[in-house]
């Protein structure tokens, strides 16, 4: 894992000092709110419905137990004792005080995390595969490039006032766990015809009110040209992106307006000009960063599967958890363990300070002190010995971190919604809780299998509803909260946007609608077909009939 050296530390300290001064000027009235807003946003500080919210980056989702303990400390000292993990590998604090934020950020800087560019019209936290470096199907560890990109984009002099926010995601594996096609730039590692590792570069993806699947701008890019190519994309965007309308300012709009071929031409012209001398990442620096991500010293362990089988046979609950939450590690004798933040009745992604401390202790005991957060708001222990799985499971249970529902219907993504957010039209959290109440039968959930439900409280789509197998979007109709369902979305490789099912439903009808969709799917699926594949094969009609009745299928609001 990357560790700051004195340069990194100095920069972050200077940033905190600068922000301390800005807050002072704001409190004294020297800065207007209008002037202060972009300055605070670039440090991750939002003004929400009831209080300031601070968003803190977990760079590419990787963190240490020391950092997790600091998150717990911050939650206790500056917030109301909890934090909320988001879909972009960040943690948010919902109740911070403006005058306390400089101290808060100074404390976070001690453990090498920041709120820098977690908001604002700049390049946001670089996100990646939460299994990076630990999974068999990976071509190379994406975290090396994430860290290079982090350093390249932090306080970039030219690209800190872009037309709109800018998100970059990297995957090193053909199985896309980082939703790269839904990013402004998506980087997908693959081998070219001569077997050399490089990146497929996607551009112009995004969600929000105009969801777009990213298009390939370059089939294969050599890694040494990564910064030059990203710089060319950003420069063309900075100069051509729309600044007249905030809703049309993302790169996806200009890519669609110019067409991908024209955008590619502009980028290639700029890339050809600068690739000879861009820039600044000497080979020694790449090697320095690579060294931080060298695999830990694993022990020579026997495969423990047989003994686990015995334990699984003896205990059904353990067996369920093993099937659902544990993934294969590339090293024999080790496993990857997902800690689901999705217990029924809990707010998806929320975690208390006490639980954070407990997680940090468990990470030290069972996962070499490291963990990850994924884009579905769950935590991951990446280096657990198979022989420790049963002990770990027993300890996670009482913390409500062993709900065996990873990737299942109740592993919902939920934005904070109208309970916190001043953009929201509707409350997303109660909808998730209602659905949970309807789907309590573990065996049924397992039978349903892979099934993502993503809930957003407004069309800004922070809950990724466009790419949920079932998406739920909160809308306001004459002051009442309604929910619009979509089917068939996916953020994985072969990403797709959901299609609208029909008229929006009142909150109390949403769980029954999900029931109807699930029942229909279970009736018509072939063998072990996933819901997504059934939908892609059959289409909307049976689901529409199931939810609205056959007479109602043509009604769309």
């Amino acid at each position: 894992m990357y560790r700051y050296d004195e340069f990194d530390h100095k920069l972050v300290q200077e940033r905190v000092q600068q922000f301390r001064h800005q807050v002072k000027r704001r409190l004294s009235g020297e800065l207007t709110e209008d002037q202060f807003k972009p300055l605070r946003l670039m440090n991750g500080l939002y003004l929400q419905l009831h209080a300031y919210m601070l968003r803190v980056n977990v760079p590419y989702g990787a963190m240490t137990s020391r950092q997790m303990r600091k998150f717990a400390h911050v939650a206790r000292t500056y917030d109301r004792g909890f934090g909320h993990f988001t879909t972009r590998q960040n943690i948010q604090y919902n109740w911070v005080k403006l005058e306390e934020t400089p101290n808060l950020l100074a404390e976070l800087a001690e453990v090498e995390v920041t709120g820098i560019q977690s908001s604002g019209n700049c390049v946001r936290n670089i996100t990646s595969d939460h299994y990076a470096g630990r999974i068999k199907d990976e071509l190379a560890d994406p975290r090396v490039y994430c860290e290079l990109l982090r350093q390249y984009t932090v306080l970039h002099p030219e690209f800190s006032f872009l037309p709109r926010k800018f998100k970059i995601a990297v995957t090193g594996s053909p199985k896309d766990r980082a939703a790269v096609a839904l990013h402004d730039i998506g980087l997908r590692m693959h081998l070219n015809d001569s077997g050399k590792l490089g990146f497929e570069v996607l551009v112009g993806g995004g969600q929000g009110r105009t969801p777009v699947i990213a298009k390939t701008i370059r089939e294969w890019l050599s890694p040494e040209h990564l910064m030059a190519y990203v710089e060319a994309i950003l420069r063309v965007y900075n100069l051509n992106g729309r600044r007249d309308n905030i809703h049309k300012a993302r790169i996806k709009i200009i890519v669609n307006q110019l067409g991908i071929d024209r955008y590619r031409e502009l980028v290639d012209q700029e890339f050809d000009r600068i690739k000879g001398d861009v820039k600044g990442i000497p080979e020694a620096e790449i090697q320095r960063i690579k060294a931080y991500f060298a695999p830990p010293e694993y022990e020579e362990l026997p495969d423990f599967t047989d003994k686990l089988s015995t334990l699984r046979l003896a205990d059904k609950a353990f067996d369920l958890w093993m099937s659902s939450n544990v993934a294969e590690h590339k090293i024999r004798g080790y496993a990857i363990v997902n800690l689901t933040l999705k217990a029924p009745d809990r707010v998806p992604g929320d975690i208390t300070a006490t639980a954070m401390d407990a997680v940090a202790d468990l990470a030290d005991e069972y996962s070499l002190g490291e963990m990850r957060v994924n884009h579905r708001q769950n935590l991951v222990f990446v280096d657990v010995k198979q022989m420790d799985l049963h002990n770990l499971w027993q300890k996670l249970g009482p913390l409500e971190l062993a709900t065996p529902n990873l990737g299942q219907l109740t592993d919902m993504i939920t934005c904070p919604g109208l309970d916190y957010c001043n953009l929201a039209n509707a409350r997303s959290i109660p909808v998730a809780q209602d659905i949970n109440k309807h789907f309590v039968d573990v065996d049924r959930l397992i039978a349903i299998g892979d099934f993502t439900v993503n809930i957003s409280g407004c069309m800004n789509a922070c809950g990724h509803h466009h790419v949920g197998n079932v998406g739920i979007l909160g809308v306001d109709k004459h002051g009442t909260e309604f929910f619009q369902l979509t089917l068939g979305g996916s953020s994985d490789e072969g990403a797709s946007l959901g299609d609208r099912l029909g008229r929006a439903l009142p909150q109390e009808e949403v769980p029954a609608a999900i029931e109807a969709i699930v029942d229909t799917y279970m009736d018509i699926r072939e063998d072990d077909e996933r819901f997504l594949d059934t939908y892609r094969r059959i289409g909307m009609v049976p689901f529409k009939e199931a939810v609205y009745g056959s007479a109602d299928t043509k009604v769309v609001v």
Partner: protein
Amino acid sequence: MGLIKEGKLVNDPFKNVSDCETVPAKGPVIVSIDQWMVRRDDLLKRSDLIGIWLKSDEHPETIAGDLAYLSLVALEFPSFRDGRAYSYARLLRDKYVFSGEIRAVGDVLLDQLHFMARSGFDAFEVESEDPLDAYNIAAADYSVWYQQTGDGRLSAAELRGKGIRR
């Protein structure tokens, strides 16, 4: 309002000439790109320095061929949120190899001083009761940079490569 150049508060030798004013007989002037197009020959006959004022939707490419005649390009920030001028400054320095003055004008927020300076600006019109003091405070904000942007300062990666420690 004050003009800061090379870390000092300086008297501005240039006069901004708006489109409805006549160009004075003598002295350095800054004119709009429209005026430059219209009065190019007259302006070149004068022996004084010439600067051009570019609005945020006026790409320096338009004057790329004329840069040899120009001593100054003023890039306007209509709002501090409009970041196009950063890219214009970089293109002026790197692509068009312009070595004259690049002046930040308009809504120049000193919290962004480092971004401007590192993108190629070397003069700043500062709206403040004490422009030099405000400038000095902002200039002390940062001593470490991750990016190499051609302004001569070494990035953290380059310093690491040279074995230099802070």
